[in-house]
Structure formats: C-alpha cells, structure tokens
C-alpha cells in the first residue's frame, strides 16, 4: 500500500476527491459546444483524481518495482503522462510570459495574437495527446469528456482565430487567451504537484476557485470572437458546401457558427454548476447526494 497511502497523505486535492466518494461523474456527455468547454478544459474531472489514482494504476502496472511516489522510469505510462503534462505546463507558461512581455513592450493588444500564434497552436494541438491517454486507458477520464474539451479548444484555435484573420486583433481574443492561459497553468501545475505528492494547498485552491471568474470570462471572450467573425464568414462563404453537388449535401459555416453560439446557452450553466459542485465536494468537503439518472 506504500505508494497509495503516501499519495493519499500528501496528495491533497486528489485524495480529498477520492475520499469525497466515488470518482466524480464525468461531465455531461451530451454534445458540448466548442469553446464553451474550452475554458472548462482546466476544470474537468481527471485532475481531481490526478496523481494519486495514476500512482495507484502505475503501481499495479509495475508490480513490485518500488518507487518513492515520484516519476516512474521512462517508458512507463506514468512517465508519459507526467512528461506530457509537464511539457504542457511549460508551454502555457511560455505563452503567458510572451503575452505579458508583448503587452509591456507594445502597450497594445494589436499584433499580440500574431506574435504568439505558433506557440498557442503548438501547445493547444499538443493537448490531443490527452485524448490518446484516455483512449489507451492510462488516465481515468473518459474519452468522450476529454475529446469534447480538447476539440472545442482546437475548434476555437484552428477554425476561428487561425482561419478568420480579420478578427485576430479583436479584444475578445485576448480575453479568452488570458482565461485559457491562467486556467491551463493552474491545471497543469495541479497535476504536476499532485504527481510529485507535494500539492500546496494554494494550487488546489486555485484550481477550484479561479474557474469561478475565468470560466465566464473565457466564454464571453469566445462568444464575442465568434460573433465578430460572422460577417466575414457570411461574405466569403468559407468552409461551406453549396448545392448542387455529387453527394447531395450542403453545409453553411455561418449557420453552424450561429448554432454553436446558441449551444452555449444550455451547456455553459451545466458545466459551470458541475464545477461548483466539484468545488463544494473537494474544497469544502461537502457530501453531495447525486440525483439519480
């Protein structure tokens, strides 16, 4: 039981989440709109299990090999997860610093997106690895949950800001970038510290409190950005297929964006209240009786 008890003793948020009862239920598995879940990516469930449960899984996998609760050897699944998350943490910190430096040097947000876009695209796309982790089962999060959240971020980055150049200097872009950056740094720090079995309370506190502001801020940023993009999409007819064509199908990206925006209305409250419930469980130790399905 060595590693598990260490993890539980020092694992802070992770162990608190476990003692709070069954692993937190996955986020609503109904279709989550892109972007709506984007700022939520920080707050999804696997973090609450974080290091401790992975430590447990790794322990089963490596059998007798004794470790001191730190990173396992290269090639093991725990090592892969740790490297991925550590790399992401590094990436988002670089992004955050780059954004601060740009603003300090230029005093304006114009051109900010252009200067950080390569880093953003790299590290946000890198998050696809998290889906792979879920697929091969080395992380307890469901593929659907991780998939939806990562897809929504990818959608925002590649299908909106990358593809619709005129909106790159909108203020709303900075708004969601800031929200994402702070969220991801908090989240990956949480994972990293959990893995090291030394989770400062502040990090746990941050992970379960920052979202209260960051999530709505991010959502507003995303919605405003999509809204700003609409006229350009309509004018250029980009990403759209018109009739007649061989496969008798059509797609209008403009209406797709409108529907996406509308989907925030049912989905944002669901995710937000879910996070609030998680917070009450983990930070305040409340026992919440889940409604029956």
């Amino acid at each position, binding site marked *: 039981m060595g590693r598990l008890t260490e993890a539980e003793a020092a694992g802070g948020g992770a162990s608190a989440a476990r003692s709070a009862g069954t692993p937190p239920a996955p986020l609503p598995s109904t279709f989550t709109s892109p972007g709506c879940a984007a700022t939520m990516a920080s707050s999804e469930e696997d973090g609450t299990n974080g290091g401790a449960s992975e430590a447990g899984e790794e322990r089963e996998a490596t059998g007798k090999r004794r470790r001191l609760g730190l990173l396992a050897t290269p090639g093991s699944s725990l090592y892969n997860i740790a490297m991925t998350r550590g790399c992401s943490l590094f990436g988002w910190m670089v992004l955050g610093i780059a954004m601060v430096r740009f603003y300090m040097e230029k005093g304006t947000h114009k051109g900010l997106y252009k200067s950080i876009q390569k880093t953003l695209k790299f590290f946000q796309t890198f998050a696809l690895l998290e889906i792979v982790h879920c697929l091969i089962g080395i992380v307890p999060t469901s593929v659907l949950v991780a998939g939806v959240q990562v897809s929504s971020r990818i959608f925002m980055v590649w299908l909106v800001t990358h593809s619709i150049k005129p909106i790159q200097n909108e203020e709303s872009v900075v708004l969601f970038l800031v929200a994402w950056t702070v969220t991801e740094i908090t989240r990956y720090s949480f994972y990293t510290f959990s893995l090291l079995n030394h989770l400062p309370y502040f990090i746990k506190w941050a992970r379960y409190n920052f979202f209260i502001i960051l999530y709505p801020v991010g959502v507003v940023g995303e919605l405003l950005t999509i809204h700003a993009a609409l006229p350009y999409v309509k004018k250029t007819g980009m990403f759209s297929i018109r*009739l*007649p*064509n*061989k*496969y*008798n*199908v*059509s797609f209008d990206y403009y209406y797709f964006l409108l529907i996406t925006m509308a989907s925030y209305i049912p989905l944002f409250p669901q995710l937000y209240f879910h996070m609030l419930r998680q917070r009450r469980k983990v930070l305040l130790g409340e026992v919440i*009786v889940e409604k*029956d399905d």
Partner: protein
Amino acid sequence: MDLSVSVVARESSQGLGPVFGLNGLPRPAPPKAAKKPKKAVLFFEVEILDAKTREKLCFLDKVEPQATIAEIKNLFTKSHPQWYPARQSLRLDPKGKSLKDEDVLQKLPVGTTATLYFRDLGAQISWVTVFLTEYAGPLFIYLLFYFRVPFIYGHKYDFTSSRHTVVHLACICHSFHYIKRLLETLFVHRFSHGTMPLRNIFKNCTYYWGFAAWMAYYINHPLYTPPTYGAQQVKLALAIFVICQLGNFSIHMALRDLRPAGSKTRKIPYPTKNPFTWLFLLVSCPNYTYEVGSWIGFAIMTQCLPVALFSLVGFTQMTIWAKGKHRSYLKEFRDYPPLRMPIIPFLL
C-alpha cells in the same frame, strides 16, 4: 420455524388416515362439529424502504409466500398511487439489481420479514407508444419534403415533382421501410419490457425525425443530383435494399416464433427453413445486420451523404446493442454457437 413443524405434524397425523392416530392406536371418531382442518399458511411481511433515504415507505403484512414481485408492486401502488408498478424498481439491496416481476417472494433470500428497497424509475411510457411515435414521424416528414410542401424550398417549387426516377423510388423505399416498422411494432414484435423512461421518447424522436428531415431535404431538393453511375447503381442498390428488408423481416418473424405470446422466455435463435435466417449461423443479431444493409443500399441508391451518415450512426448504435445481446447470450447459454459474431460475420 416452530410453526412449520407443527404444520407438518398436523398434516402427517391426518395423512395416516382417518382410522389410526399418531401413536398407532385407533383414533376415536371425530366429534361431529369438528372444525375444518386449517391449512397453515406462513404469511410474509414485506417492508419497503426508499433505496436512497432508507425511509420506510410501506409495510405490507399477510403477504402470500407465493406472491410475485408484480403483485407486491400492485400492493405498493395502493398506498402510493403516484408510483404505478411500471415505475417501481424493487431490489433486495439498495445498490443491487432490480428484482423481476416474475420472482416469487418465498424463493428470494429473505426471512419471513422481507425488506425491499424502492427506487423510482421516473415517468414511464410504453415501448409500443414510443415505437409508433418515432416511426410515424419519419414516414410523415419525408412525404412533406417529397411533395415539396410550401416553405421548404423556394416558392416556385411548391408542390412540384422531381423529374428523377430515383427520387420517386427513394420515397417508395423510405415509406415502405417505416410502414413495415409500424406494422411490425403492432403485430410482430414481442417486447420483454412493457415500458421505458419517458425522456426516451424525446431523445428517440429527435434522432429519427431529425435525420428523416435532413435526408429528405436533400433527396427531394430541386437541385438533387442523381447517382453517378445512373440506372445501374440504382438497380444494384435497390436490390440490396429489398433483400435486406426481406432479411430483416424474416429475422423478426423467426425471433417472434421463439417466444410464445405473453411470455418473456429467452432461447438461442437458430436458422429456419427461410434462407434469410441462415445468417444466424454467423451472427447473433442478423436483424441489425440486415438493417444496416438496407440503409447502405438506400445510401448508394440516393448517393446522399446525410443518408450515409445516418447509416453510420445507426450502425454504431446497433453494434453496441448487438455486442450487449451477444454477451448476454454467451452468459446465459453455455452451448452458444462459437462461430457467431455479434453483428458482422467474422468481424464484429
């Protein structure tokens, strides 16, 4: 269990016949005004607790030992009329599996006072109702598009007719498919469960009606493009469609014949004389196999991407169901044919 011992004793004393008593001596003639021998029945008591709150909801005394769960549910409804039997889940353990309606009280691992835990399954709706609603929708909706009812396409197309044969053929196939489903629901299928949760009807109807509208919009569109390989493609696809419809119907009939009316028996399905049922040799759920085949045929016939997507989604769902069914067959029947796969021969 003193009660039962004395019952046995009394019965055996009677069993020795009217002449001899227990000690072998001739029994004196019974007094004329003898009471009728009372057959001792061991009544059970049933208390029903809420599975979540453990609150005592109902106490039933004098329950026959041979009472079924269904009868207990009826008794429970009397004290809580808002919970009709279909929405009751009774179980021996709050987190355990639901007891079946046919289970008999005395066969359960309970003492003479049985504690059952109740869970509300929510508002229920009958399977037949759900099926009829979800299938009637696509039938009707497709025809709205086929006849180009106003406000769908531009006004100059209102009530016009397509000049492509394949469009008319597609309407016939689609309508036939859903009429077949409606008739099967009414006359062929024998359902294991009477009801399902009410919210399913909204979910299911959205799926069926939504996809029907989406497909029908393109197939009946004034700018519809007929299949690339023309009449050849349409003929081949139609053949696939018809064969799979016949196959699907044959399987439904074979499954129906496995189960007598009103029963819930489960048996391994086997091929019959009907060649369409020979697919049972290779697959546990050939009805799903044929269903996918029908939709693939329809997709090729119309060369319409939304139809292909509908087929794909349907295939995914049916594969999940087939795998579940296959697993239950394997669990329930030791001698289940090993060659069979859930839905695609040899593959899936």
